[in-house]
């Protein structure tokens, strides 16, 4: 059965779409609780309802990458080959402590205040 609605929903190419429905490929599911913890995020009640479905839809779309032949292809890290041209190590003007800390949420004696970490 070809569910065109589902193909449209995930905006899949026909190739991937058939791979999924012929059982040659499964659509992945994100364990959102685990991943959110890794990136130090919690979800609101509303996001709990909407995000998991949306993320699975997006992931299904990303799975199309699997049909591209990338054998022997080098990954692109930067659009052009020059990578990390570092400037010369000359000391220049720097921020004063006051400027560097002007956006700190809490500070005391020119230092950022955080809760006790080691008991």
């Amino acid at each position: 059965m070809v569910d065109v609605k589902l193909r449209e929903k995930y905006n899949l190419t026909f190739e991937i779409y058939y791979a999924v429905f012929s059982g040659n490929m499964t659509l992945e599911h994100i364990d959102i609780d685990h991943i959110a913890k890794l990136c130090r995020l919690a979800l609101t009640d509303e996001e709990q309802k909407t995000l998991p479905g949306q993320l699975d839809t997006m992931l299904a779309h990303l799975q199309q990458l699997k049909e591209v032949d990338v054998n022997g292809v080098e990954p692109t890290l930067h659009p052009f080959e020059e990578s990390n041209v570092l400037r010369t190590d000359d000391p220049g003007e720097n921020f004063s402590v006051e400027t560097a800390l002007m956006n700190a949420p809490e500070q005391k004696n020119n230092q950022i205040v955080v809760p006790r970490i080691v008991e």
Partner: protein
Amino acid sequence: MEELFFKSAEELAQMLTQKSISAVELIQIFLKRTRAVEPKIQAFLSLDEEKSLRQAKASDERRAKGQVFGPLDGIPIGMKDIIAEKGQPLTCGSKILEHYISPYDATVTERLYEAGAVLFGRLNLDEFAMGSSTENSAYQKTHNPWNLEYVPGGSSGGSAAAVCVGEVPIALGSDTGGSVRQPATCCGITGLKPTYGLVSRYGLSAMASSLDQIGPFAHNVIDLALLLQVIAGYDDRDSTSCKTEIPNYRQLLKNDRQPRRIGVPKEYFSEGLDGEVRQTIENAIEFYRKNGYSIINISLPNILYAIPTYYTIMTAEVSSNLARFDGIRYSRRSPKTTNALDIYFKSRTEGFGSEAKRRIILGTYVLSSDHLDAYYIRAQKVRTRIREDFARAFEAVDVILSPASPATAFKFGEKMDDPLQMYLEDIYTVAVNLAGLPGISIPCGFSKVGLPIGFQLIGRAFHESELLSVAHQFEIAHDFYRCFPNMA
């Protein structure tokens, strides 16, 4: 008579030179216009009238002494609120930077000061430049001046709307996957995404570092050239900045009438493109053909994978770049915390909107060790394939012509519940960022309901002047850049 606030930067510069107006008078005209239309447009997140008047006064004093800094001296410019301007807010459209004040100037900001431009205010955007409608701003919705029920595009929607409606003649935005070109198209103005590395990213809050570029908005191509001239060039504070010769873009526009070879990729004119948009762009292609350009059909087979490639690489880089907002050093700290871990969780959860969370989570997933090879590394390899497609195409053509967005601007709320549909707004623009190439969007008509339509031209790396020239040929033969929204 055309209103002064709709004049181009170059026309205004001529008036300043002839002393038929002063920079202070000019800024007052734009402030008055902004006060009049801003309640309906909502393009600005903040304005510093005192600062702009002070800068304008200094410009007039320079002019009186015959010490003009350049063609943009005394010209007002709007800044997307993601580019640092010392002493001004830098919210990035996010609650997490609600009270942040920039401690330093971005390189482009310094260069604008050196050119005498008057920095006019901070423009609205999707949170951290993530979106295609500016609806993801944590602060306000910017309206499309052509029809207030429609979005202005995004993420630089504030910059596009402000130029379109005459609040400023020129503005800066940033473009990671289309965030200059798509809103420019939605608002019927011109926008340029320069070659990666041409404009310094120092002081641009990073979204996806291997894709981000700062780009100019203007009513016409001449103004894009003037603004690009100021912001382009090597900067040792950006390790990805390229050492390349910067030509005189404005001068080259004057002398260049040479017809070129234009490639039309078949993949960009297939399903998913609105019929009215297609017809209008085909008329533009016909214009070039009639004017001696050769039109060559080309194929870029791997751009079919541009969206999944882009959304893998971009979300990976977003998850890494936004990790710095931890509530400890400079972003908003949640007041309800007891321990360090709590600060991270609550500050980030309260500070980021849903789109930021979606992208951080997806990016963390594609970077996690179990999925790194299947997604992130694979996407980087497909990115190589896409770059190779463009390189091959540019052996036979000089520029590539394509749509800039799949349809005209859409209504508020239309795509907010369906992120993937929102992402497909970028389908014609993201490949350009993946390949690091320059892209420009040019208005070329209106839909039946009166919304602007535009097309995109893509050039070889660092061939901005060729791109500007081909765009300019179209522009001067049409009057779309002289069409302005009718706002009472």
